[in-house]
């Protein structure tokens, strides 16, 4: 028995007779524990099916988290290099498939700037784009909150919010023909005007959505269990927000007041007054509260837009860009030729580069498009907001419990299509 053996016994005796607090147990000297690797894999109810988090866990606490994405990489860029300018719209629907209209609008604005016709877009088309865009933003936040609440066990809230989303989808289906993959926006405007009587239906649906939201709010916002899971969990500091490139509700929840609709108004957003909800602590609850408040702000925009929408054409009548109406095509030779040329040769965008950005569901949705004058883009890059928002989880997750990964990941609102493109 070497000299220090009794010391070993000594510390053993101290533990057994309980003079020390149990927290001393945990230090490496007395009862060392091994780190257990754990795969929170792609096929997991809380991981939206497309993210694998390789956790290293010490008991309940996470030591390191390696977030592996790419399980839904569908090569948007490669497909867009082989598709004409108009054929890219269906691919943009499937980027952030929770708010497809906002992607369509973002892509259309980028190409219109390249064509230098962004000031010739008719007023009515811009209003329609704002209206369908804000409806899509509401469905985005409804889905995020519904899925986030369901993953925490609040199944009733899931039904309330998905029921509200169903009403909104029916409206978008009336406008564009599809519930989710609308492909409704075209370069130069939108593909069809709002159906008759549609605005009245929208106002009625907004009222119903408000009741559904207040029900969900009553169930969650002052619910002790929900607040314990969300308050102070997954805190992101405001100083980190800019460096990591965070935008959207995730950045605003940390206190960073940056909303593209306010800071760089596009379309007709500068004609509506609405506030941008900004959080303070940057924890999960602030992200939840920011999204909930944003839904109400979007409703305010919708009501003002419906009041102010002017009559007029819904697409620019420049035949180099937009198809002439059916009546003209059948009756006049010029429209027939224009229609034929546009269908056969497609749209020709002058050579140039542009980075245009709009406020998507998760933040600044940027389109960096390089054109060399042909019918197909040379490069059409999407700056995905949730890609940057998710990256910061590698810094936020260590130190949390395993159970905290679910609400934190849910409130980041990572959408596979947008993050992996």
């Amino acid at each position: 028995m070497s000299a220090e053996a009794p010391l070993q016994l000594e510390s053993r005796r101290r533990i057994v007779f309980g003079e020390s607090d149990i927290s001393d147990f945990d230090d490496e000297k007395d009862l060392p524990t091994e780190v257990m690797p754990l795969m929170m894999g792609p096929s997991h109810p809380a991981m939206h099916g497309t993210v694998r988090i390789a956790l290293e866990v010490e008991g309940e606490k996470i030591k390191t988290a390696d977030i592996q994405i790419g399980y839904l990489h569908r090569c948007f860029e490669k497909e867009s290099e082989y598709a004409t300018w108009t054929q890219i719209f269906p691919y943009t629907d499937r980027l952030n498939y929770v708010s497809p209209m906002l992607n369509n609008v973002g892509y259309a604005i980028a190409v219109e700037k390249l064509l230098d016709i962004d000031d010739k877009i008719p007023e009515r088309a811009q209003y329609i784009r704002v209206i369908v865009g804000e409806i899509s933003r509401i469905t985005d936040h409804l889905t995020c909150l519904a899925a986030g609440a369901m993953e925490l066990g609040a199944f009733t809230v899931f039904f309330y919010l998905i029921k509200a989303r169903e009403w909104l989808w029916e409206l978008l289906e009336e406008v564009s023909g599809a519930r989710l993959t609308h492909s409704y926006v075209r370069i130069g405007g939108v593909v069809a005007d709002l159906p008759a009587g549609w605005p009245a239906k929208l106002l009625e649906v907004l009222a119903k959505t408000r009741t559904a939201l207040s029900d969900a709010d009553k169930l969650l916002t002052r619910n002790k269990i929900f607040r314990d899971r969300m308050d102070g969990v997954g805190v992101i500091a405001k100083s980190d927000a800019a460096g990591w490139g965070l935008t959207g509700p995730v950045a605003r929840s940390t206190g960073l007041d940056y909303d593209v609709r306010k800071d760089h108004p596009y379309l007709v957003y500068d004609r509506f007054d609405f506030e941008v909800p900004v959080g303070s602590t940057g924890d999960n609850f602030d992200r939840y509260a920011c999204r909930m408040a944003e839904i109400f702000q979007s409703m305010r925009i919708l009501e003002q837009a419906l009041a102010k929408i002017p009559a007029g054409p819904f697409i620019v009548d420049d035949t180099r860009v937009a198809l002439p109406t059916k009546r003209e095509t059948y009756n006049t030779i010029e429209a027939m030729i224009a229609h034929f040329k546009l269908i056969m040769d497609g749209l020709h965008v002058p050579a140039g580069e542009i980075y245009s950005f709009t406020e998507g569901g998760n933040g600044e949705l940027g389109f960096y498009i390089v054109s060399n004058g042909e019918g197909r883009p040379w490069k059409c890059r999407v700056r995905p907001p949730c890609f940057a928002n998710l990256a910061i989880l590698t810094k936020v997750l260590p130190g949390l419990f395993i159970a905290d990964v679910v609400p934190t990941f849910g409130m980041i609102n990572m959408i596979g299509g947008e993050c992996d493109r």
Partner: protein
Amino acid sequence: MGSDYIAVTLVILVGVGVALQFLAFAKFLGESRPSAAKDITYESGSDPVGDPRARFPVRFYPLAILFVVFDIEAAFFYPWAVNFRELSCAGTFHAGVCSAGVSFVGIGAALAFMVVLLVALIYAWRKGVIGWG
């Protein structure tokens, strides 16, 4: 007295019978095709990493023991609650009527039992066993 035992054995037989019936259905009517790929542990679709029998923090153990203690404590309350009125009756207790006054034994027994465990709970709480620290 005998009929009580018949009732109890019947309940036990039916219970066990239903359980065995489900097992029989599963064994005889279900397909069973064990395969190597099926025996790999399910880790959300990924290859399982690491060994689950690693040493994990000691905190789990006292917490589990505390749960067992207080769970069984709750189980002891049922017989006490059933006989509470009889215990609180100083004299004889017959058909719902107590002959003498109220005796403290009924409530006292439970209180003593709870106080002892309450002391243990407070001691454990101050030691920081509860919660993850």
